[in-house]
């Protein structure tokens, strides 16, 4: 994941996807995403090089 994110980047990414986000809303989204980005970066530590995403439901289907 990104190391961090700014509200200007939020506006730019949304714009690329055809969505206009007002600055005030972008600041709020950015604040909400900071904790998620931190958690996401820690999450990356449990992924082994061989892990395939296609195995998501392997446990259930087996």
């Amino acid at each position, binding site marked *: 994941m990104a190391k961090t994110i700014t509200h200007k980047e939020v506006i730019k990414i*949304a714009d690329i996807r055809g969505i206009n986000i007002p600055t005030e809303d972008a600041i709020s989204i950015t604040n909400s995403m900071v904790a998620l980005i931190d958690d996401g970066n820690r999450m990356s530590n449990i992924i082994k090089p061989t892990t395939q995403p296609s195995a998501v439901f392997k446990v259930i289907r087996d």
Partner: protein
Amino acid sequence: MDHLTSLSIYEASELLKSKCISPVELLNAHLEIIHKKEPILNSFITILEKQSQDSALIAEKEILENKIKSRLHGIPIGLKDLYFTKGIKTTIGSSIHKDFIPEYDSAVTEKLSDSGAIIIGKMQMHEFALGTTSINEHHGTSKNPWNPQHVTGGSSGGSASSVASGQVMGAMGSDTGGSIRIPSAACGIVGLKPTFGRVSRYGVFPLSWSLDTVGPMTRTTIDSAIMMNSIAGYDSRDSSSINVKTDDYLIKINDGIKGLRIGVPTNFFYSVIDPEVEKSVKNASRKLSDLGAEVEEFSLPVLEHSLAISSIILLTEAAEIHLENMRNNSAKMGVDVLERLRQGLILSGTDYVSALRARTEFNQEIDLALQKYDVLLSPTLAIGAPKITEDLITIGDTTLSTSSLMSRLTRPFNVTGLPTISIPCGLTSSKMPIGLQLTSKAFQESTILKTAQAYEREVGFPKIA
């Protein structure tokens, strides 16, 4: 609740079968309670008074002719307002779809109708099922029958309040991050999230294709099993449906739990929790041990990653579903829902794939734990249902948004897709229900149902005064 509306589905089905009561009489008692309590609770988006009366008359004739379809025959049931109902408004709790009328029934709607259930209404919910409070600016907020100043939890809030208050005998919810279990715990009822793929999602408006699950909400464990008997099974119309033979969920429900191995993870679930909730859940754990289960505490470090995995997958998949709404209808969406969807928009494809890979590792760790234990036991909610006006909750040194805290403990089991049931296990000092959740291996709903039933039979569930 009066006599008829306080019956369990099981009790009512026995009285219907023996013709001691009629479906019309049972329905009218529930309609009376609905009209009495609805101005306070706001459990419904649509009350199907005429349709349900017509269905009850048909059920009455069939039962008199001894053509009994199932234990749900003649039983009033509510559907969260994201289950498609042919010719009946289905809003998904939104303003955008306030006039949407599906041209077909969801698979669950079909199965309940085939079982003879009386669909009495479409239940209030958090907009697009993307929230944990059921505070809804478009259709009004559902209120908790234990104290209407408190939230019902969400997103299946109307389903929970209607079951807890006796407006319906059972209801259907949906669960993507906890939306069956959270309101069930908050309103003091039984909520079952079946194994991913066990109950068809055909005709249920989606939130997240790889996390969504649909299941029953009832006042008793046996009633949950009765509803599962009607709704479980393979459906080729749902690409996530898995073709595994269904159980009769009632057969082993009273078998007891002697020798059952129950694992209690000691990390994650207890790092941010109201001490009253922790005490009640640990008391329940001891009770299960007294009933013959082998209960053991253990550490499961991978749980710490469940929120990141769940959030990235849920938000990205929800943003994909609602992309056009974000482009064209954002002014019609609630502020909280729009903000979550926009977070999903900002996450990247690589973030999503990382979460899918982490999910595989996560699921394998949980699977390993379930090789040692038959059931995992944990609290459902870290708190009793908060007041509607509380946006932030502080426990010890930690302050979290109400929304985040409400789904914190339920999400791990959406990541795994494993069956999980929430049952009541006490009350806080402010008289709000406390819930615990029991999780088992894939398709082992019978195991968690018999564990829940052993607890219910021994201890009972709190009832609204």
